[in-house]
């Protein structure tokens, strides 16, 4: 494989802190190896900025292998950039061409206040989980998961939902700033499995209520979330959540 290098022009949202009003700043980068990941490209930029005595661009990241859900920014209008089912850390520079201008913005939503530059406070998602995204085991030892027979299609569906890494791209891309794909995935992941049955109704009610309280918008089925989700989570999970919620609120 031959390594190419490309030159880029970047327009990045810079914001000092949560109270400041931010703005875009333009940077140019030369000789970026196409083997680099998007975050490594930002590392190079930050090294340059630091050497020049300027403030580096703050961005979130942790595992850099697409499993933790910490990274994320909107690149040219698409959350996590142009590659489908790819987190920003797993997006490689070979998908861009020399001379490209990349506009890099934080994940925006009223429920995600910006902390600094590209870092947003996504703890609203944590609070939705705290409201009911768990199973309580109040007595005895937890039964061995493998000892409970589950149809393989159900297990697959639950696993698909469980692959949500909670990055918040669904919220960022939703024209309504809704968190229904996230909440739907977390609800259906548990409601599909036997371990989730005892708290099924309370969970649906509590998590939907928590979601509304955080100021997320309402789903109007635009399907943007599913298109940008780095884990390819289907909006079928939103339909499952709707069923769960209606069942819990009507049948009690």
């Amino acid at each position, binding site marked *: 494989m031959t390594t190419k290098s490309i030159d880029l022009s970047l327009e990045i949202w810079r914001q000092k802190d949560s109270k400041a009003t931010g703005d875009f700043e333009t940077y140019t980068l030369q000789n970026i190896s196409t083997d680099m990941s998007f975050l490594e490209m930002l590392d190079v930029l930050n090294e340059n900025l630091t050497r020049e005595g300027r403030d580096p661009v703050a961005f979130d990241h942790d595992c850099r292998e697409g499993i933790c859900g910490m990274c994320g920014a909107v690149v040219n209008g698409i959350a996590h950039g142009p590659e489908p089912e790819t987190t920003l850390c797993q997006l490689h520079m070979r998908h861009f061409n020399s001379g490209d201008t990349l506009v890099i913005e934080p994940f925006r939503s009223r429920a995600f206040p910006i902390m600094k530059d590209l870092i947003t406070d996504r703890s609203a998602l944590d609070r939705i989980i705290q409201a009911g995204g768990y199973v309580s085991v109040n007595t005895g030892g937890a039964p061995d998961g493998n000892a409970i027979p589950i149809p393989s299609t159900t297990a697959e569906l639950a696993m698909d939902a469980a692959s949500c890494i909670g990055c918040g791209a669904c919220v960022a891309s939703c024209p309504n700033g809704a968190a229904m794909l996230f909440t739907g995935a977390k609800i259906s992941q548990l409601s599909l499995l036997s371990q989730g049955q005892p708290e099924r109704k309370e969970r649906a009610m509590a998590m939907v209520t928590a979601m509304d309280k955080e100021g997320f918008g309402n789903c109007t089925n635009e*399907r*943007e979330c599913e298109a940008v989700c780095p884990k390819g989570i289907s909006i079928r999970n939103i339909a499952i959540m709707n069923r769960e919620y209606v069942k819990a609120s009507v049948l009690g």
Partner: protein
Amino acid sequence: MAITGCCLVLFLCSHAAGNATLFYSTQLFQAYADQLHSHPLIVSVFSKGLFLIFAVHAITGSLLFLQNRKARGQGYKIQTRAVKNSQASSTMIYSGLLILLFALIHTAVVSFGDHGKIGITISELFDSFFVSIFYLIAFIGLALHLSHGFWSMLQTFGVNHPRYNKLISRLTYVVPVFFLLIFSAIPLLFLFGTGQ
């Protein structure tokens, strides 16, 4: 939105069926209208119910639009959509408002007009080129609204399963096209002089 939307689709079905008498003749249509209005109780219950459902649909839709716009907060510098063909879903509020305008005019002229000669009212109405065009535009708006609305309604009801999704995606085209054809046929017939 979904529940009222579902009721409104059912109303569209009955309205389309009533309209279909016009394909035969204005006299038959008049007979249908007379028959309908000879049951004042049914008419008043249904028309008031319909008004209520329509109003709830329009008001919740508008509130939803405003609420969601607030939840979005600041927009992006680059506005793109990852989903192709999102025109219908992103313009629901506008196609909805067009339908609202149409419904107001249509009821003012037709429903509150003289039912005794509704057949004549209709044929006089569509004599005007502009009225016919306005009706056609409104029906296109309706089709656009339904092309997102119908699928969206099922999704909200939780109907999303690989077994039915093929059928649903076909209905997403069939339903709006069906209503577009059956409703616009009437002004078109009058426009091209074949309606009587």
